[in-house]
């Protein structure tokens, strides 16, 4: 495959983050893990939004579905009744290991995104935005209240916490690899052509509907995988995967530059880093002998302000939608 060098910067950034996460204290490590999972989510978003140019507010529902799949299948059987008292019978005895649960989370994301995309990808523009938003609303609403299939409003506790630095980094790298392979494939190129000029692309024989559907399904799988990684990191409340996360991940994509894979990774790491630091500071943090204690809400405030600022000053994002190039280094 040509242009493999474009992968250097995203991979190096993820590995660097992982190595940094290995040397810090275990309290801080959670933030690095969280940021690596955000990288996976944002790359999943990028596969659809970046390549198609269509906004989707529904991807966090695929993450929630991944959380649910991996979570409900890995809670130890003897504890299922305690955490999920209303659970349906067929889920009560199902139990799989770490890696199969992650794979199943990805499959769940893939299947759900494909089925949801079958009708939705016929829409474009605002209608598509609102319809994908509807998917988010519905999934959130059902997972929150339907206690026959999950913990409802409770957290997914007792899920084995197998997501360490390496698992999170490998997950993010898998997402980056899939996203790269997709965007270099003929399907990815065809979708990018429809983004630039839908009329010319259809005239050249490209089915906008099919290409968008394929990208939606692929990005759904990656989002599901990210969800699986997330539930193995900490006891997730499914209810929390809603507007705030949608906003944060979209902000990461837009701030980094939604036109390139590098933009997705840079945006996720930059805002993830800032958000983690400020969130830590909300609980009080010691920095170079200073004790910093910020009021709750500062992190969202700073992220919102940064996002608005980047959009006004540099609408195409920090990377300007370009991939990493070796020419940058020769200059």
């Amino acid at each position, binding site marked *: 495959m040509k242009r493999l060098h474009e992968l250097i910067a995203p991979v190096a950034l993820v590995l660097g983050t992982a190595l940094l996460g290995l040397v810090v204290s275990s309290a801080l490590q959670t933030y690095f893990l969280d940021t690596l999972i955000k990288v996976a989510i944002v790359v999943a978003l990028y596969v659809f939004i970046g390549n198609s140019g269509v906004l989707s507010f529904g991807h966090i529902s695929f993450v929630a579905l991944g959380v649910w799949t991996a979570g409900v299948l890995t809670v130890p059987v003897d504890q299922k009744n305690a955490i999920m008292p209303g659970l349906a019978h067929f889920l009560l005895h199902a139990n799989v290991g770490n890696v199969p649960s992650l794979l199943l989370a990805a499959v769940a994301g893939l299947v759900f995104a494909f089925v949801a995309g079958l009708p939705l990808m016929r829409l474009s523009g605002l209608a598509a935005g609102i319809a994908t938003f509807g998917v988010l609303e519905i999934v959130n609403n059902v997972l929150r209240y339907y206690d026959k299939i999950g913990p409802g409003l409770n957290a997914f506790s007792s899920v084995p916490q197998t997501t360490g630095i390496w698992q999170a980094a490998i997950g993010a790298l898998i997402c980056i690899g899939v996203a790269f392979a997709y965007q270099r494939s003929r399907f990815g190129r065809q979708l990018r052509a429809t983004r630039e000029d839908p009329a010319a692309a259809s005239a050249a024989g490209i089915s906008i509907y099919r290409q968008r559907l394929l990208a939606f399904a692929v990005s759904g799988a990656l989002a599901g995988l990210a969800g699986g990684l997330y539930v193995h990191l900490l006891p997730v409340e499914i209810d929390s995967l809603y507007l705030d996360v949608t906003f944060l991940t979209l902000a990461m994509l837009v701030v980094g530059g939604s036109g390139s894979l590098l933009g997705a990774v840079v945006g996720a790491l930059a805002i993830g880093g800032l958000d983690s630091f400020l969130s830590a500071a909300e609980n009080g943090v010691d920095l170079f002998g200073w004790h910093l204690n910020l009021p709750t809400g500062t992190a969202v405030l700073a992220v919102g*302000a940064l996002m608005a600022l980047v959009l006004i000053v540099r609408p195409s994002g920090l990377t300007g939608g370009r991939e990493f190039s070796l020419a940058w280094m020769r200059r």
Partner: protein
Amino acid sequence: MSVSWQTLADALSLGGIYALMAVGIGLVFGVLRLVNFAYGQLIMAGAYAVAYASVWGWPSWAGILLCFAVVLALTMLMDRIVFRPLRTQSPAVMLVATFAVAFLMQSIAVLAFGQLGTIASSMGPLNQPWDIGGVQIRKIAIVSVVVAAICLALLQLLLTRTSVGLHMRAASMDFRTARLLGVRANRVIGGAVLISGLLAAVSAVMLTARDPQVTPIFALDDTIIVLAGVVLGGLTRPITATLGGFTIGFASGLLGGALPTNQSQYLPTFLFAAVILVLLVRPNGLFARAGGSAERL
């Protein structure tokens, strides 16, 4: 499933308030091609103005005045520092920018006023029931239907009988051609933004009377539903957006009152499933004229 008069009145009044919000969002979309996700936070700010005026012991008319002042000032500020620099950007960038502004304002509210919220007790009398021919109906339901009808009638007069209204309608059909024919861009946009701010202030007062508990996420759910309603109705003309807003408000009020309690928690599911279905059949909107081209994003 039985529908009481109170449910019907509530549904009508929710439809009326949502229609006002919808036309506020629709007018700005018409001239700027911008979907303002931060509209709900303007209403939230107005609601805080009413609540704090009531905490300070101001009379309710002073609270309403403060609400209008705060909302209009914030609307103008938002237009100045966010919309104006982004006017030439794609609708997607502008939508995400208003997303950012919305969360910015919400987190400012959390920092300034706290998570728990404030009670706007000055609006309490409006929640007392009126006895109409043996049927008890809350005053606010009737007041908001009447206020919404008056506002929409005034707006219709403004849009059809004045030159500013004519310019606004021309601009929302084709901004460039309208400018070439002598419509002043800044005046038209300023007018649309101002009216949308006024409607936000009216909605803020009505919503605060319905639900006096003002929190940083006040009106957030309402805005999401109204946005769906606006797209459902169609953004091509103010009237289609208004009808969309009314329809979704009425439907959600009716469903909320009529569903049995063990199903009413799934109200968003029913509502958004219906929205998706309608959009699949009529992507340009329920009330849009046939033959118009869909908005691209």
